[in-house]
């Protein structure tokens, strides 16, 4: 059941973005920025958490999940250490993704040559 929900959620999100991309003058950069903000907005009152619980892995893959993890880590740390927690916990959950992306792209850039 989770597989079907993952397929439908992730596919529908990508399709909506593709329709926006085709029919307006927005670039992929605009769309990813909007989606990240949307993910952060949805998790302000824990709506995205419910979506993840309902959908499963399909909701962790889109870039909305990035915004969700940013604010989720910030709020979790704020709960422990007060106001400064928003600053301290911002990258708590997304650290793996950012670190992995930096490391892998650096090493592959060193090893492999650009081609067109």
């Amino acid at each position, binding site marked *: 059941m989770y597989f079907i929900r993952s397929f439908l959620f992730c596919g529908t999100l990508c399709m909506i973005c593709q329709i926006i991309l085709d029919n307006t003058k927005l670039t992929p950069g605009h769309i990813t920025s909007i989606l990240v903000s949307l993910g952060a907005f949805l998790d302000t009152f824990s709506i995205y958490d419910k979506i993840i619980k309902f959908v499963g892995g399909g909701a*962790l893959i889109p870039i909305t999940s990035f915004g969700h993890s940013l*604010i989720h880590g910030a709020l979790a740390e704020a709960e422990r250490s007060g106001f400064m927690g928003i600053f301290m916990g911002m990258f708590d959950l997304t650290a793996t993704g950012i670190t992995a992306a930096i490391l892998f792209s650096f090493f592959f850039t060193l090893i492999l040559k650009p081609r067109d």
Partner: protein
Amino acid sequence: MRNTKYEKIANRHPSKENRVQNALLAFLSGGVLGVLAEGMIEGFVFFFDLKQKEASTLMIVVFIFFASLFTALGFFDKWVKKFRCGLLIPITGFAHSMTSSSLDYKKEGPIYGVGSNMFRLAGNVLLYGVVSAWFFGMIRFLIGGIG
């Protein structure tokens, strides 16, 4: 110089891409990635005996690894051209933008080439993610009811 003339000409000839086909391709590829993500999480939990949270973290690392590798090997760009949002919206798009921009500027050296340009395309995601997460986090914090 402003290229208004170019814009006029470009607006007169809209690109004749098949929008329905594009949307369907994005739907299919995005859905397949979602199913892969869910399958990976369940596989990691089942075979490696990981917790749900560790498994989803490992899943994201695996996705980023393969997206960077395929971008550096050169054939991910062709897929992106074909599937567009189906590959750009998932986390693969983030890894793809970082690897492709750092590869493009490799010839300008390791500091001013790779180092300065790695976040050229991925920077907007980080910037607006952090700004909006801070903003909404402050709202939630001030309203209260954290937890």
